[in-house]
């Protein structure tokens, strides 16, 4: 049976998941350099061992309110095709496996956010995981 491994994280009270194969690493928040004139969801750029990579604030991207950085705040560094970028999340929760059959297509009425970013909704017992369509998060309007 097909299975997917996900890295899950939280934004506020909602839980999200990204395919583990796209995750390069998870880091604490380094100094972020603001980039003027960039789209508002681009928080800035960081130095990842000599490479400059953009960081996206998922909260801004999903139209949520901004929050202060906490001890749990992390940047998940993703590689989607050839692009490497980071997404800033409130906290990384766990790594888990989920049956492909437990993933349902995005509901037609999205969960208060743009449905274009959602690849599907995973059910684990009572928990609902929002699976992200990563190629849509970076650009891809």
């Amino acid at each position: 049976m097909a299975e997917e491994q996900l890295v899950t994280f939280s934004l506020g009270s909602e839980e999200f998941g990204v395919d583990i194969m796209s995750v390069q690493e998870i880091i604490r928040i380094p100094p972020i350099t603001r980039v003027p004139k960039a789209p508002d969801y681009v928080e800035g750029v960081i130095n990842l061992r000599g490479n400059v990579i953009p960081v996206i604030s998922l909260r801004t991207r999903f139209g949520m309110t901004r929050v202060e950085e906490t001890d749990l705040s992390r940047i998940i560094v993703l590689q989607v095709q050839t692009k490497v970028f980071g997404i800033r999340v409130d906290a990384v929760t766990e790594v888990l496996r989920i049956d492909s059959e437990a993933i349902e297509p995005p509901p037609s009425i999205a969960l208060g956010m743009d449905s274009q970013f959602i690849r599907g909704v995973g059910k684990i017992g009572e928990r609902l995981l929002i699976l992200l369509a990563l190629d849509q998060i970076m650009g891809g309007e």
Partner: protein
Amino acid sequence: MNQSNDNNMGVDLGEFLEFYLLDSSEQIERLGAGLLQLEKEGGNIGLINDLFRSAHSLKGASGTMGFTPIVAMTHAAEDLLDRLRQGKIEVSLEMIDILLAVTDRVKAMLVKVEQRQEISVGYEDLVISLKGLINGEKPVILATPQFSQGQEGAMAKFVPLNFSLSQDEGEKLNNAHMMGHGIYQVDVKFASGTLMKAVRAVMATQRLEGMGSVIKILPSLEDLEVGDAEGFSLLVLSDEPNEEIRRELLEISELVEVDIHPYPVGEGVEETEANEREVEVKGESVTDSERFIETTGVKSEITSEEIADVLTESKIFKPLPIQKIAVVPKVVVPVSTAPATEAVSGESNAQVHTIRVDTVRMDNLINLVGEMVITRTRLVQIGLDLKIQYSTDNMVNSLNEANVYLGRLMNDLQESVMRLRMVAIGTVFNRFPRLVRDLAKKTGKEIELVLKGEDTELDKTVVELIGDPLMHLIRNSVDHGIESPEERLASGKPQLGTITLDAYHEGNHIAIVISDDGAGLDLEKIRSIAVSKGLVGEREELTENDISNLIFLPGFSTAEKVTDISGRGVGMDVVKKALNNLGGMVDIATRKGKGTTFTIRLPLTLAIIQALLVEVGDEIYAVPLSSVLETLLVERTDIKTVGGLPMVQLRGNTLPLISLQEKFDLPVPETANEEVYVVVVGFGDKALGLIVDELRGQQEVVIKSLGDFLNNLPGIAGATILGDGKVTLILDIGSLIQDILVKR
């Protein structure tokens, strides 16, 4: 063939293919350049040899990879060059044309190969043309019946016999040669007292029929029947390895010795003393070539005959004058004892000193060095902090000393690594002689392209991107600059126009100069066209320089007719834009009737720049020092607003200003300083002042891309990482100035 190989070898073939492609395109470049030289200088034997060698290795390599169309074409070209170097035919213009066409065609095929597609490019027409050239002027060589009985006592050392071939047989031999079949002279000895010699010879012929065909037997069967010959010689066409032939023949009773040698085609044997000496040379190197095959174990479609050809290239047969030939054997001895690979061509010596490295690996290395520089800066900082805390501790002092030494090493390392990216601009220049030749032919002009400063090195990225703008400018010089031969004569100039391409270092920049001795720009015409197109006002006062620069405006073209060389009015502004993107600029100097000179100035490298760090609010930005003209300290009250734009008076001129804080939507500081710093930046002949809070000093920074996603932000050229590990953005002065101009 290619396809089946793909299946069998998978990854391996891919690796070979890469080498093959690199090598082949190099050979093609060499061929192209050589052909142009040949056209200029005529039949220079050294040059023809080089060309032959290039064609030959191309054929060999393509054969190994199984690219039959390339083999067929290069083979025919090789044959033609072979005739040329033997002086059998003369260099002609159509010959050069066809050979150049061959290089183009092969290039097209190589592109297909690179894309892992089947070679669908046609080639038969060129092969036919080549053969036409070969045959059209080919004297009948093989049928010269002057040297027929000379084989006695020649068994020990190989002498290519003259088999006195008929026209028909000669034809067969030539065809086989052209198809790339092996052609061998097989010398067979009888055991002493052998009876029925003729029968043995017939048996030998029959046995060999299975592996190829026997063209001729010497002495003839009749002679064998009656005479007391010790052996006989066969002229055999076969693709089988020598060993197979030998084994086959030795199975016939009473045949004791079998010597097999590649038979030189197209090189008839003549009765001159000098020739005999050479023949020995040939024999020696043939054994050499066989050794080469044995030791390397190369069993490809390259026949030993072909390798022998290559090996003996330095010892040409006919065309050398006698006295030169006399020297040859002396030269040959060390060559033939040397490893075969070295004997292949003299120039291999020069190439040993370079290696090819994937640019990705190199960039990675550069990145790592950049990282080390940053880490060292931290180390220095820690050392200094420790010093403050434990100022009396000797170990802290040693640490700081080591840090200083490390710093020096890092600087050297960084410089050396950066130099890896430097490439001679000759690689770009070298494609232009061909371009100019073709264009000149098309326009009926006579033009010589003079290349200078090809050794000048600059960053690889620049070299890659400079090609197109340069090509545009050269096309322009050919089309609009140089006059027709008649016009030139009429104005008292030499018929042959000259375009010079030069490159040299100029401080932190590299200058590339394209100058022609043509008619020069017609300034009045340019002006009137610019006025008629509404690009400038009729009354506007313009210096000559201003007028010349009008041709860089979009939509400007003075050519009366649109040609396929240049014209359509897209050229020059594209050139200017491309150069600006590289951080460069272009100047024009023109004198009526004397010619036009374009001077391009480019930064040496795009990877590292000197930058002025400025502070705006909490942010730090890097301004490329090459655009910084000066810095000023200005009282806020001196800044006036004209038409909504802040301005300041600078030596009688008004200088438009940009507040970076406003431009980049930075938070407004609570307390404004009385005085602000203004960094005056210039791009081309436009100047602009950037209002900043502080100047942080000058520093060398490594430019990093912001990636595809953030690539095209206005005002930002890239990013860099400072000593503290933080990312700092590099300002794009060009686009900032553009912005202001638009607003105005």
